[in-house]
């Protein structure tokens, strides 16, 4: 049961344009959503998060939008730069017994920014 889905395995965007990465989820109990970026041969790096009670969070060139009714979130990168070329993982967390936050990851979308 894939609770966090990234349906686009790859995306190519011209430098300077907007990159939009999408993520859908099925579990209405998720309370936080996160995006991670991963370069080859490195571990994932935390990018940005959003609480389920918000609909937008912005950090520099990165903005995450949350549409709870559609169970959909997206990451916008504006403007896209060649250094943004990486695999982007969507993740979602829900609180379990004892205060532990279980994090579920999507399979990732590979972004290529073309100079």
């Amino acid at each position: 049961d894939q609770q966090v889905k990234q349906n686009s395995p790859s995306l190519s965007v011209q430098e300077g344009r907007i990159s939009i990465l999408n993520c859908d989820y099925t579990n209405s109990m998720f309370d936080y959503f996160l995006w991670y970026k991963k370069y080859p041969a490195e571990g994932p790096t935390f990018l940005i998060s959003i609480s389920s009670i918000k609909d937008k969070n912005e950090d520099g060139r990165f903005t995450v939008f949350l549409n709870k009714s559609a169970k959909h979130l997206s990451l916008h990168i504006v403007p896209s730069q060649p250094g943004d070329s990486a695999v982007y993982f969507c993740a979602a967390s829900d609180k379990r017994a004892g205060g532990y936050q279980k994090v579920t990851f999507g399979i990732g979308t590979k972004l290529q920014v073309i100079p």
Partner: protein
Amino acid sequence: NAGVTQTPKFRILKIGQSMTLQCAQDMNHNYMYWYRQDPGMGLKLIYYSVGAGITDKGEVPNGYNVSRSTTEDFPLRLELAAPSQTSVYFCASTLVGAANYGYTFGSGTRLTVV
């Protein structure tokens, strides 16, 4: 600031062999995690720890064991390696359990079982 350090980076094991994947963090984080990533899949949680002396199973714990004797170290033990354990293993840590702060990941260990 080293962050999360994993060793080794690469390893080839024969079926039935054992090994320990090392993970150390120098950020005084309470929470530590082991994930595996198979090709075309998301990260799956193997084990986690909320502090020294406390560990618990994640989604895919079979075939693995962990210990947490200190805040800094969280080794992952494979006792009888099987081809199904071929994967990339990531260790992560966070100061508190709130996931909105994000995890700090190590650079991974690529394990092949032949």
